């Protein structure tokens, strides 16, 4: 009987802890993964001569200062699925919000196509900032990313290793 008592106590503890831990690890993950549509206007006047009906491409001008990487002038279409967490750059980027952060691309891993773009939140955990010929890169294992401001958010483009 004493054993039974101990057993049931044990079950109680395990149940409660699994509840605590179970919800615990889910919470921050959830918050991190929120995708934001954006599009909230912060100015009344439309401004500029922006042709909003047109196909807008981003010309990334990747690696224009280096002779090592010939992958220049990568056109990143806005409809490219950018993986990331909270679209922190949405704040000013009225027109930059078509970026789908729906999680179509997994965390940046080796083998991503050159020219693919991810957000900072999707960078693998162990990367180092490396400067090559005056350009800034993130090296994550064998994959190299070039950070760039897209609107007021930094995105990372997969590039050929610069060295």
């Amino acid at each position, binding site marked *: 009987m004493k054993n039974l008592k101990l057993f049931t106590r044990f079950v109680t503890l395990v149940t409660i802890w699994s509840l605590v831990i179970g919800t615990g690890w889910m919470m921050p993950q959830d918050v991190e993964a929120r995708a934001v549509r954006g599009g909230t206007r912060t100015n009344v006047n439309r401004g500029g*001569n922006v042709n909003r009906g047109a196909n807008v491409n981003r010309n990334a001008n990747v690696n224009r200062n280096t002779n090592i990487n010939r992958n220049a002038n990568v056109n990143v279409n806005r409809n490219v699925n950018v993986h990331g967490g909270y679209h922190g750059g949405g704040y000013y980027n009225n027109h930059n919000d078509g970026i789908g952060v729906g999680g179509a691309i997994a965390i940046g891993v080796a083998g991503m196509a050159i020219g693919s773009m991810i957000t900072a939140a999707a960078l693998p955990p162990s990367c180092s900032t490396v400067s090559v010929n005056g350009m800034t890169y993130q090296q994550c294992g064998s994959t190299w990313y070039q950070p760039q401001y897209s609107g007021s958010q930094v995105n990372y483009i997969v590039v050929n290793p610069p060295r």
Partner: protein
Amino acid sequence: MKHQFARNVYSAVLMPTLLLLAGGCSTQQVAAPSAQPSTVVESKTTEPSSAVESSAAQPTPVIEPKAMDALQKMGGFLRTLKTYEVSFKVSKDEVLDSGQKVMVDGTSELTVQAPDHFHFSTKIDEANRDLQFFYDGKTFTIYGNTNKFYATVPAPATIHELLDVAQERYDIDLPFRDLFSWGTDRADVAAIQSAIYIGPTKIDGVPCDHFAFRNADVDWQIWIQQGETPVPRKLVITTMDQEEHPQFVSNMNWNLSPKINNKLFTFVPPKDAHKIEFAVVEVVTENTK
């Protein structure tokens, strides 16, 4: 002994269940108030409705000259300002993919020396945003206080032109752009479909006049300070061409005689900062690629 067992079973099985139920109850309580209005609506619709008729017949939009005059007066005054600081407290709806709206708060500081200098810093914790923008008439720089990345580009000669370039070429629509549109032909005055004076009120203790405007794509409200310095003290923009009608709310505090250090406008990279590039927006009119 059997009792003891039962008690233990109770604590093992029922306790978590109770916990869950308690959780369920609390969410139900939260949901309850929002359910109430919908029943009110229901009772309304059963009555023979005159409300339906009035909504069907679109009231003709009103453009009150008083409202348009106030806007013009404010714009004219803004264009006379040379050196000033504005502190912003902003709230902005972000629309999640589910269509749910969440509101994030932030603060910004703008320092202007017209026509060709500004510094703008902005912080929204929940959106991981902590940025500075520098413009000194020669270059335009964005710097992330957290990630230490900066990008610098050559800039046009005036703030007005820079705001256009930032928006068109670099996809950065600075949220204070309106302050430089009003009083110029960059203000879409012709786009205003409705303009009404709501009434006098106070914003942060300062007497203001409250106006409501309607454009094709935005409903917006502005609170303009009464008296000799007709600056906007508050702005609310409701984005109407988005299904969820997200809002942007900005409260402004003005200092029209600040002491400014000129070094503020020119970016000097900190030792641990990294230079990166701006992505350039390319408007492709024909699908040649």
